[in-house]
């Protein structure tokens, strides 16, 4: 039973990583940049939801919607102001800008919300699931997180394969120059990817804080790094890869915590990543692109 509990908890944590990793991977696929500020968007999303519920007294669902809208706008604004001017700049400059945005978001949150951790009350008030005569107890948050991840994945897959916008998105990530020549507006496509990614980050933030209820300005950074790791593990740029990498990483982390020790759990997660990348250098579902000579 213990293994099963851990597995389900791992899948739940992994689902959060997967949702965050989707944002990383989509942005990387289209803009070829590592958006280090993505983790902090999670934090902003959680804070918005927290404020909406605690200070404005809105219902949980309204808090989530507000948080998604807020983060979507934030994503678009950040992209327009900080990343768009750097479209043709060396990738390291874009990386540093993203780090600057990350610092900015963290310190702005610190100024507005203070450094003391806020205790986030779960937005999900459903009773826990009891199976096998109460031997296996799964909290509603866990179930909902996994469900949310599955729904988001399905929706995104449909979006990228069936809609015109989704196809434009895939075209841009395949070859931006050719996409422009085919009449696709690259700028608005990139904006849209940032909007989707940031909206997803808001959902991830709410789910993450429902499971781990401490909210601080630095809350987003470690899950951000882990999700980034998950995206790379799955093969950066690949949407199913991000989901697979995220879930895998979550499961490994929970099992490492349970059987090896909390202190070393992160070391185990990163060690697994290294071993996997050495076996498959482009990630699990990534395409191995070789240079043309």
């Amino acid at each position: 039973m213990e293994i099963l509990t851990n597995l389900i908890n791992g899948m739940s944590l992994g689902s959060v990583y997967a949702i965050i990793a989707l944002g990383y991977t989509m942005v990387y696929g289209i803009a070829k940049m590592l958006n280090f500020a993505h983790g902090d968007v999670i934090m902003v999303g959680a804070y918005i939801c927290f404020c909406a519920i605690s200070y404005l007294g809105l219902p949980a669902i309204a808090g989530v919607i507000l948080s998604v809208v807020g983060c979507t706008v934030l994503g678009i604004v950040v992209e327009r102001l900080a990343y768009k001017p750097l479209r043709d700049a060396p990738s390291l400059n874009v990386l540093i800008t993203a780090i600057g945005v990350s610092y900015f978001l963290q310190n702005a949150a610190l100024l507005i919300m203070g450094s003391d951790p806020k205790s986030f009350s779960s937005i999900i008030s459903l009773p826990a699931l009891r199976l096998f005569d109460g031997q296996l107890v799964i909290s509603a948050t866990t179930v909902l997180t996994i469900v949310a991840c599955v729904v988001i994945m399905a929706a995104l897959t449909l979006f990228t394969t069936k809609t015109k916008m989704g196809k434009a998105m895939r075209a841009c990530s395949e070859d931006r120059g050719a996409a422009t020549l085919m009449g696709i507006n690259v700028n608005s496509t990139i904006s849209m990817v940032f909007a989707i990614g940031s909206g997803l980050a808001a959902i991830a933030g709410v789910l993450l804080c429902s499971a781990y209820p401490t909210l601080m300005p630095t809350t987003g950074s470690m899950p951000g790094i882990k999700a980034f790791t998950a995206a790379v593990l799955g093969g950066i740029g690949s949407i199913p890869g991000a989901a697979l990498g995220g879930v895998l990483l979550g499961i490994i982390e929970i099992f490492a915590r349970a059987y090896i020790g909390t202190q070393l759990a992160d070391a185990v997660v990163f060690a697994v990543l290294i071993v996997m990348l050495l076996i498959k250098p482009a990630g699990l579902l990534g395409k191995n692109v070789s240079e043309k000579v």
Partner: protein
Amino acid sequence: MKKLSKTLRSTLSTYALIIIAFIVVQVLMGADLISNSLQGQLVPICAYVCLAVSLNLVVGISGELSLGHAGFMSVGAFTGVIVAACLARAGVEAELVLFVVSAVAGALVAGIVGLLVGIPVMRLRGDYLAIVTLAFGEIIKNLLNNFYIGVDNAGLHFSMQNSSSLGMEQGTIIVNGPQGAVGIDKISTFVGGVVLVLITVAVVLNLMHSRSGRAIMAVRDNRIAAESVGINVTKYRLMAFAVASALAGAAGVLYAMNYSTIIPSQFDFNTSILILVYVVLGGMGNIRGSIIAAAFLTVLPELLRAINDYRMLIYAVVLILVMVVPNLKTYQRLVDMVRVRILKRDAAEQAPAAAEGGEGHE
């Protein structure tokens, strides 16, 4: 010959910059014009300069994005602390000897760890390489969080459980897991720091302008062409990585010996990123730039102390603006306008001469 003198000139001006900065600081300190908090920053500034210069060897000169430089810094720092504690217990009192031996030991161990980490890392490229260096940095931090090391008359004791499982009698605990190393002799000095900066800069510059350094840059510029002229690509990527790790280790010793306590989580991903920011702002492959950027950006939050609450926010804004502004169309137009005006003035001055030629560009 002209080229050689150009390199020589740039090299000399880099050393001159360090020495002049040192003299200026000494004079200001003599005149008591530097605040205490800034004086406390002098050794960390030197350490960060060393770190930035060494990371530039990897990022700028070898062209690999490394996000785990702080890991090697911490390996050096903890090695140095352990060696110094052992030496002190063995009765060595001369601070210079303590410092030099622990710095060399820190560099050596960090270099070896860099080599061991580098062997798998160098099989990867680009962003995958970056994420693996990040992973190694985090693993090093996590492992150090679980290290308990003590020394007694029987020698060194090591455990990964807790401090009581070291099984020591009347020994001293040097490294105590997440609490880090405590009771460090604060033997780092500003002079020592400047000497280490000079050594680091000399190693990197000498390497850059040599057969090995050219091979490293060849791999960066065009890996396939470098292979085609018989350069062992892995060897030279690894060389740059290991040398940079060793230098980071020495800088870590300098940094650690400036405080009485250091904890493993000080050397996390954010520290690695901080060093990377210095390198990118200073200019890739530009050693002088790294020195200036590291020194300036370490001092900047100190200078902004008056507006304490907002200083990190301003730091972030500065970072973004420095990257974004040169790429803005309006800014470029402005620069072009100024340039055209200057050119026009020059042209007006030597109009008859400039009338012909000058347009020979393909």
